Each structure stands twice: as C-alpha cells, then as structure tokens.
C-alpha cells in the first residue's frame, strides 16, 4: 500500500490508465475534476476493451448490412435471418489475458461470457466454438499444462451449462508462446419475435441485477485486458474470475422464462466493466440517464468501495431493464430457479449517470461522455520483416527426397492432425441438434422441426497474416466460406475477433488496418457482412514480442435442406475424385514450409475473390443438385493432406493421376487458394464437370476412390506417393497425443 501513497503525488489518472489529454477531455466534459469514483468510470469506459479506442475508426470499412442481416454491430451480438421467421445470433469474444494467467478459469469464463451475450439477445444458446492458439509445447511442461487447462476449462464450462461445443480450431506457433489466444464463439437461436435489445427505455423503469453475487473478481479486467502482459503482477492476479456454469445454466433458464412475458424492455449481459458498462450502454442507447445505488447490489464481500461494485467482473450476472411495477413478477420467476433479481436503480430522464451509496450521491457524470471514448488513428508502417519474407523464392528450398515421409510428418503436424484429443472432452451432442460433429469442415446443427440447419465455423491463420496481412485476412474469410459451402451451407455472415499486438506500434497498427481491409474486401465479395466482433489488442510480452496478427473469423451459413449436408469423407470405392480450381507452384506461407523446412517465409498464395465467389456458388449448386458424395476444401497442407483426410475419414484408399508441370512438393503441399476436392459417382461425374465448364471453373477428374487401403498419387506418369492408409491414419490420429506427451 505504500505505492498508493506515492500515487497520491503522481497523477491518479495515469495510474488508472488514462492519458493526460484524456484526463483533460473528461474534465472538460464534466466541467470539473472527477472524484475517485468518477475517474474509475472513465478509466473503464475509455479503455480499448470497452471503448474500442484504437479499432473503432477502422470498423467503417466493414459491410454490415444485407438481405439476411437483422442486426449488425452495435448490440450484444448480431442477428441473421434463417427464414420461417427464425433467426440466429452469434458473436465471438477473446479471453486471452485471463487465460494466460489462470488458463482453466480464464477459458471457462470466456465461454460463459459469450454465452451471456447470446442470452442477452433473447436467444437460446445452441452451440459454442473456440479458436485456440498456443506456442509449441516442445519439451515444456508449462505450455502443455496451459493447453490442457484451457481445453479443460472450455469443456467443463460448456458441458455443465449444456451448450454443445461443436467446433473450432487449435493452432500452434511460437508467436503465441508468451501470449496464448483463447477466443470463444456462441450461436443462439430464436424466433424473430423474441429478439431483445440492450436498451434502457422508460423513465422510472427499474434496473435489476440477476444471477451471481458481486465480489471483487476481475477487478479492472477491462483495463487489464488492454495492457501488455508484463511479468506477473500481484495486483493483476487479484483479477481472476471464477466461472460457475451451474449458475449460468439457471440464469439461462430463468431469463428465457422471464423473456416470454412482457416484463422486460431491455437486457444486457455484464462483461467487461460489469454493472458500469452494461448500464451505461443501455442508457446511452435510449438517450436516458440512470441512477444506481451500490448499496442495493447483492455482494459476496463486505466493504466494497462504490467503484469496485461498479466495475466488478463477477461472472454470471445480467442486467434487466424491467417495466415499473413488474419487478415482483420477475423476481418470482428467478426465485423459482433459486436465484434473486434485485432492483439496484432506475432509468432517469436527465441523461446523467449517477452512482449512489445508500442514497448518497458518490458520482455523477453525463452518460454520453462515458460512451464518447476518444478514438485514435495511429501511425501505420509496413513491418520490416516483410522485405525479407517476401524475398522468398520456391528455389530457396530443395524438393525433399522422401515425399512419403513428408506426408506422414505433415499429417501429424500440430496444426493439421486430428483434434479428437480436444473435442472428446467437449459434449458436442447435448441438445440433440448436432448433425455434423467436430472434425469436419463445418459443424452443422439442425433446426428442430424443420428441414434446415446452420453451418458454423471458426478460422484463422496467423502465419498468413504475418506474411501478408491484407491477403491473409481475405484468405481466412474465403476459407471460412469454403468450409461452409463444402458442408452444404450458404455463407450468411461473420463475426470477427481481432487479436493483435500493441497498436501503438506502427507495424502492429499496419497489420491491424490491413487485416481489417482484407476482411472487408472478402466479405463484400462473398456477401457475408460483418455483424459483430471483438478486439483484443496488446497481445505481446517483453520476452516473446507481439503475436502474429490473428484475425479470427466466425462464420455462419444456412443449410436450406438437411439433404444438402455433405461431409469430407469418401463414401464408396469406385467414386470419381474431382479437383476444382487451379494448382500453382505456390509454396509461400505454407504449413509445409513452416513445419518441414522451419521457414515462415514467402507470400500468401494468390487469391482472386471473384473466382472464389464463382467457385463457391458452383460447389453449393452441385451439392444442392445432389451430384456430390463428399466435399472438402484444400487448406493447410494442400492437395495431399486434403486427400489423406478424406481417405482417413472414409477408411478408403485413393488412386490419383495428375499431369501438372509443377515441382512435386508444391503440387502435393502447396496451398493455392480456391480449390476443392469432390467425389462423385460415375452417374454424376459428367454433369459435375460440365457444370464447371459452363461456369468457367477449372475442374478435373484426378482419380478414383479405392477399397484397397492405399493412397497413390502419380504425376506425369511417375509415382510421388504410394502409402498405406493405416500409416497415414496413425500419424493423423496420434499427432495431438504426441504433442501432449512429455518426452521424458
């Protein structure tokens, strides 16, 4: 506490995380100096986490509207129309810093938090996904512990709350060594008429807090998340939030029961900066003021200071704006679920944000000023490494002698191998909607009682964005959409998670800006508007530097009939294998260069967004026509890996003959974009090829599915690969296990 005394002489606002000019601005907004409570309000609301101070100006590039878009950015989650007066709502959120410090709890509360965003829209949460990025464990017990704790935390929370965890991704690079990424996504379903908004209308209406008690957990998490992850600091450690999925389950049930009645005008979950940000946001949207008495907030700990109550990030709490006179009815429903619903304040007409303690005013500032966080357009500068990495030429590496060994090694690569080790720990079947379970290109959930479903994906590629942020970001959106179409889903919209380093560094800001531009361009080309997202900046440590620029794309798609649901595995021997798209001599940025040659070099493969769109439309059309037995996109590891995956999943072999004048490693493992692998019966294959020709899309029959369990790839008459399926399967299926086993 001696620090505090020194702090009194220092500038208090600096300690709180505000700059001199921000302090000047807020005093001019207020017309006076703030007291401690008021200062805390600004410090939280003007942090990057709540105020999007560095990212907001860039959001203008996004396409945010479209025929299926019911709600774009600006609410807790976006909403898209899936016909029949039904909608789905979805969003993703990062929990990187908490997960770095307490991986189990950090990951668990990340899942819980995003579920509440979905709940706040009035929807029933129907699926969770997660995108995880870790350093390579190597021989390190610590990283392994981190990985297994994060996965355990995600599983335990999702399993207990009864929301199936149906997909996601796990990727590895030492760029994430000091700063792992844990992004969670949730999807909810509801009828259009059930949509709720985060708005505090109706002067005199009550603000009710529901769910958990308020404690000192996550004190200052919002500003904490907006700082570099420096050496552990005991004050930050106090910020650990503990998740209680059981409480969350009750909260879901009780809230949805309340929503069925006409008691509630607005709903907001309590995430970063807890009561404060949830109430400010709802008030600001309505143009109203609010008054909150911290003494009324049910607390877990005695003697909390008013600002602590206001910004606590205790989990499993929601704010309801309840019509005057309906409070008892709301409370009765919560009581049925053994929960409380307590009035902590009300909506006022004076536009002020007023904090009381036992009826006595302890802080008062204009609502609009809290929402008016200054934004910063920062300086961008092309990262110096690009000069070097872009200088890569394919000739810089030799074609390996033993392609057989390379394929086996690729199949066991951490980014490629089966993630069953992970999703076996997730209940992916609860709620009985999971038509396509984890392990395929997209998870598919049915909509009960209808012949339709939704496809859900989460994708990223930090290496691509590091080597070419703009095209890298485009590729991720394109890949997400490919994952949708091969599964039989028409891409609808995305939510984006912007995970970057410190934006005040010009090179990082460049990556951020370019990535956003890339996402925007691809979304326009593919007609998948951005309906929400999240930003997590300052992901860097003194020891390991900044993470790869890692935008993560969460996408949903509509499966118009469950008959269209398509999976990647080969279905029967004798089927024809068709390759869609052009294979070029592109090794740059590939998983192959990284994993086999240890090079993060080169440029991201070319991407023609017009062709991408046309090809995806074609894939969807042939699937809907019923011409396709299996479909898979070519991604990490290229043609050979995609082929092996379809063989392993179907427990069938393949016999492939190509005639491409391309060096064999690029042919097998290069990651040329906009490519797909289909299989079709002899009856359909001609129509498949003909339709492609009509659309001007490259398509070639490259071989057959075989029942002898061997993968054979020939090019220009000579054999490149002739490998036993079992050997491939073992490499693929045990890759993760090996990663998680210590070498000792």
């Amino acid at each position, binding site marked *: 506490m001696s620090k505090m005394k020194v702090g009194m002489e220092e500038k208090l606002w600096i300690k709180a995380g505000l700059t001199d000019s921000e302090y000047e601005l807020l005093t001019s907004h207020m017309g006076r100096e703030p007291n401690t409570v008021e200062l805390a309000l600004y410090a939280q609301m003007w942090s990057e986490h709540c105020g999007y101070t560095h990212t907001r100006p860039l959001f203008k590039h996004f396409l945010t509207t479209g025929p299926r878009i019911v709600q774009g950015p600006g609410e807790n989650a976006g909403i898209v129309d899936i016909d029949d007066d039904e909608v789905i709502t979805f969003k993703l959120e990062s929990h990187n810093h908490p997960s770095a410090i*307490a991986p189990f709890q950090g990951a668990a509360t990340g899942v819980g938090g995003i579920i509440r965003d979905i709940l706040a829209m009035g929807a029933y949460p129907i699926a969770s996904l997660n995108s995880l990025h870790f350093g390579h464990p190597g021989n390190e017990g610590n990283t392994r512990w981190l990985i297994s704790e994060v996965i355990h935390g995600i599983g335990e929370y999702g399993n207990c709350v009864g929301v199936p965890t149906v997909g996601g991704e796990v990727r590895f690079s030492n760029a994430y060594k000091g700063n792992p990424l844990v992004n969670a996504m949730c999807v909810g379903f509801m009828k259009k008429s059930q949509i709720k908004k985060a708005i505090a209308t109706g002067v005199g209406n009550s603000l009710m807090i529901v769910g958990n008690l308020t404690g000192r957990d996550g004190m200052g998490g919002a500003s904490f998340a907006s700082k570099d992850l420096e050496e552990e600091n005991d004050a930050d450690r*106090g910020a*650990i939030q503990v998740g209680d999925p059981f409480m969350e389950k009750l909260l879901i049930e009780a809230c949805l029961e309340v929503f069925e009645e006409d008691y509630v005008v607005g709903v907001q979950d309590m995430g970063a900066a807890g009561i404060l940000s949830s109430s400010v946001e709802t008030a600001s949207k309505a143009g109203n003021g609010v008054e909150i008495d911290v003494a009324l907030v049910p607390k877990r700990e005695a003697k909390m200071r008013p600002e602590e109550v206001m910004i606590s990030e205790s989990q499993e709490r929601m704010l309801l704006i309840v019509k005057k006179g309906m409070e008892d009815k709301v409370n009765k429903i919560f009581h049925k679920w053994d929960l409380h619903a307590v009035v902590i304040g009300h909506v006022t007409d004076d536009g002020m944000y007023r904090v009381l303690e036992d009826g006595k005013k302890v802080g008062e500032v204009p609502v609009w000023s809290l929402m008016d966080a200054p934004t910063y357009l920062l300086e961008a500068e092309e990262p110096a490494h690009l000069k070097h990495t872009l200088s890569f030429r394919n000739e810089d590496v030799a074609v390996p002698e033993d392609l057989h060994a390379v394929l086996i090694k690729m199949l066991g690569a951490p980014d490629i191998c089966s993630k069953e080790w992970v999703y076996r720990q997730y209940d992916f079947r609860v709620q009985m909607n999971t038509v396509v379970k984890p392990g395929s290109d997209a998870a598919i959930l049915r909509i009960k009682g209808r012949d339709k479903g939704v496809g859900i994906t989460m994708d990223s590629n930090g290496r691509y964005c590091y080597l070419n942020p703009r095209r890298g970001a485009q590729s991720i959106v394109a890949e997400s959409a490919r994952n949708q179409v091969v599964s039989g889903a028409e891409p609808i919209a995305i939510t984006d998670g912007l995970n970057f380093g410190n934006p005040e560094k010009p090179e990082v800001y460049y990556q951020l800006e370019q990535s956003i531009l890339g996402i925007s361009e691809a979304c326009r080309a593919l007609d998948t508007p951005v309906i929400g997202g999240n930003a997590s900046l300052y992901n860097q440590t003194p020891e390991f530097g900044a993470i790869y620029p890692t935008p993560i794309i969460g996408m949903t798609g509509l499966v118009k009939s469950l008959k269209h649901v398509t999976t990647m595995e080969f279905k029967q021997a004798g089927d024809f294998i068709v390759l869609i798209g052009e294979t070029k001599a592109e090794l740059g940025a590939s998983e192959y260069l990284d994993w086999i040659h240890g090079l993060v070099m080169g440029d991201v493969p070319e991407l023609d967004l017009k062709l991408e769109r046309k090809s995806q439309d074609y894939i969807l059309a042939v699937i809907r026509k019923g011409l396709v037995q299996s479909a898979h996109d070519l991604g990490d590891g290229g043609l050979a890996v995609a082929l092996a995956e379809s063989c392993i999943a179907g427990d069938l072999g393949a016999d492939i003959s190509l005639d491409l004048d391309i060096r064999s490693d690029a042919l097998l493992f290069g990651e040329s974009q906009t490519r797909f692998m289909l299989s079709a019966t002899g009856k359909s294959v001609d129509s498949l090829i003909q339709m492609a020709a009509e659309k001007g899309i490259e398509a070639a029959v490259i071989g057959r599915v075989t029942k002898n369990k061997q993968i054979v790839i020939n090019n220009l008459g000579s054999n490149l690969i002739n490998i036993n399926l079992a050997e491939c399967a073992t490499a693929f299926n045990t890759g993760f296990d090996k990663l998680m086993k210590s070498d000792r």
Partner: protein
Amino acid sequence: MLKAIVTVMLKKGIFDPQGRAVQNGLESIGFDKVKGVRIGKQLEMDLEMDDRATAETSVHEMCDKMLANPVVESYSFEIKEA
C-alpha cells in the same frame, strides 16, 4: 518413511462456487447453521525420506511447481511419521 498431508484451497477472496452449492445443499436438508463452506483438495503421500527438513523443502517445492496454482490457490502441509 514419512507421510505428507497437503491441503490446497482456493485463496481467500476467490469465489468458490462449489462451496456455495454444497452450503445451499446442506441448508436444504436442514443444516442451516453451516456457513462459509469452501472446498479444496487434500493430498496424502508417502515420502521415501527420513529427514523431516529435507521432506519439508521437497514438499514445498512440489506444491510450488505442481500441486497448487499460486494464482488461485494457497497450500499448507504437514509432515508425519508414516
């Protein structure tokens, strides 16, 4: 041979949802005088050691390295004759 009994509990101030659920459960079957339930782990282990001081250092180290997560948990232990 010595025996170590290690107790690992969530740090004070960190929310213990399990403790609360058990407290509510106890209350619902009539044990309403029970408050502040907190639940942690107890580990019992045999140590092939004879010297108490060495054992203590060793157990301390185990706790710091593996048995407790210092971010959320605190630990205490006792060394006994086996």
